[in-house]
């Protein structure tokens, strides 16, 4: 039972942490709850479909279907996190200002609600499909499975609880620093997911490894330990990274930072111009 609980906990953890960060980062955006909930619902449906079609997906693309699907899912999440962060770099200050005023909402710009939906959808779908397959396997295994089902449910609950605690923790950050901290969290999350995608594309033989072990810190912090897995999800920690994973990590980090700078810069310039006009009047 405990073994089952731990496996389910690990499967659920990634989705729970991603959703917690995204929910935190989108604080103050009206309608986010509904969009995130829809994302979770669609994600569960998607997870079940992927689990049912597991055999077909595996044999697609000459046995590389799964890795290609995983890479596609991860890269779409990276794109959506990028959109979210770039939008926040233009509107975060305004959101923070309005958060201080009770009940205010932000109506400017194209709100990244679809991004919230896609991020939660893919996070739930990716990890959920493995969870569904696993539960299916123990259900089919028979024997002492009521114990195992209880373990599975316990594991899911524990994963959701950790996500909830992270979300509550984020909300304790003072509004002044809130959005710059969540921006950094999303930035590192996106870079880590991009590196994972690079790993899958390499696994499918579509990208060269550029060196399989650039460094090896397994003896300091194993990636399969719980803390190692935490860092893997949150900041993309890899104990034994390949060259291509580093390229994707740094490339994603730089790209998002540059996009945020350029958007944030435009806004600052406009504010400056407005102030100039005001002074002239």
């Amino acid at each position: 039972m405990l073994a089952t609980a731990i496996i389910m906990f690990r499967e659920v953890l990634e989705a729970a942490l991603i959703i917690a960060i995204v929910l935190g980062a989108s604080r103050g955006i009206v309608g986010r709850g509904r969009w995130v909930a829809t994302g979770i619902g669609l994600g569960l449906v998607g997870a079940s479909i992927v689990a049912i079609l597991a055999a077909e997906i595996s044999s697609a693309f000459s046995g590389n279907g799964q890795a290609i699907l995983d890479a596609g899912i991860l890269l779409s999440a990276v794109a959506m996190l990028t959109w979210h962060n770039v939008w926040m770099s233009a509107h975060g200050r305004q959101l923070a200002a309005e958060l201080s005023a009770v009940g205010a909402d932000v109506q400017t710009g194209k709100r990244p609600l679809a991004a919230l939906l896609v991020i939660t959808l893919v996070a739930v779908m990716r990890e959920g499909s493995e969870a569904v397959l696993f539960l299916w396997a123990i259900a089919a295994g028979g024997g002492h499975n009521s114990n195992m089902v209880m373990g599975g449910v316990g594991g899911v609950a524990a994963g959701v609880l950790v996500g909830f605690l992270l979300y509550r923790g984020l909300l304790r950050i003072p509004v002044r620093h809130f959005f710059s901290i969540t921006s950094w969290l999303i930035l590192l999350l996106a870079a880590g997911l991009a590196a994972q995608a690079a790993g899958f594309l390499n696994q499918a033989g579509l990208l060269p490894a550029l060196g399989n072990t650039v460094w090896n810190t397994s003896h300091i912090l194993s990636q399969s330990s719980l803390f190692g897995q935490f860092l893997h999800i949150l900041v993309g920690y890899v104990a034994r990274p390949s060259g291509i994973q580093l390229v994707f990590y740094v490339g994603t980090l730089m790209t998002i930072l540059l996009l945020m700078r350029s958007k944030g810069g435009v806004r600052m310039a406009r504010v400056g111009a407005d102030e100039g006009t005001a002074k002239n009047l």
Partner: protein
Amino acid sequence: MLFRFMLVTGLIGAFALSSPAQAADSLPVLVIHGQQFEPGELALPAGTKLKLVIRNQDSLPAEFESSDLSREVIVPANGEVTIYVGPLEPGRYQFFNDFNRAMQGTVVAKGN
């Protein structure tokens, strides 16, 4: 946009670098049977990119996972998958079944 660009350049690079396909019958095979990996210690040549077949003969799905090899793949019940591995430095690489962590094995990469 940049990601798409990165992906496309990466793909072009990959095709330029990928080694010629090996004959299917000479591929190394890792079998999952009776909730065990066979062989538990799989010898592979170091320094070359190769295809590895993972064949699941059990009626339970498995998830072959290795942070040492940075590989993660579901192997359906009574199914098989093919993954690329390497080029590896000589050494030992742990792997396990994420659906049954008691199931473990090691890839041993040896130089020629």
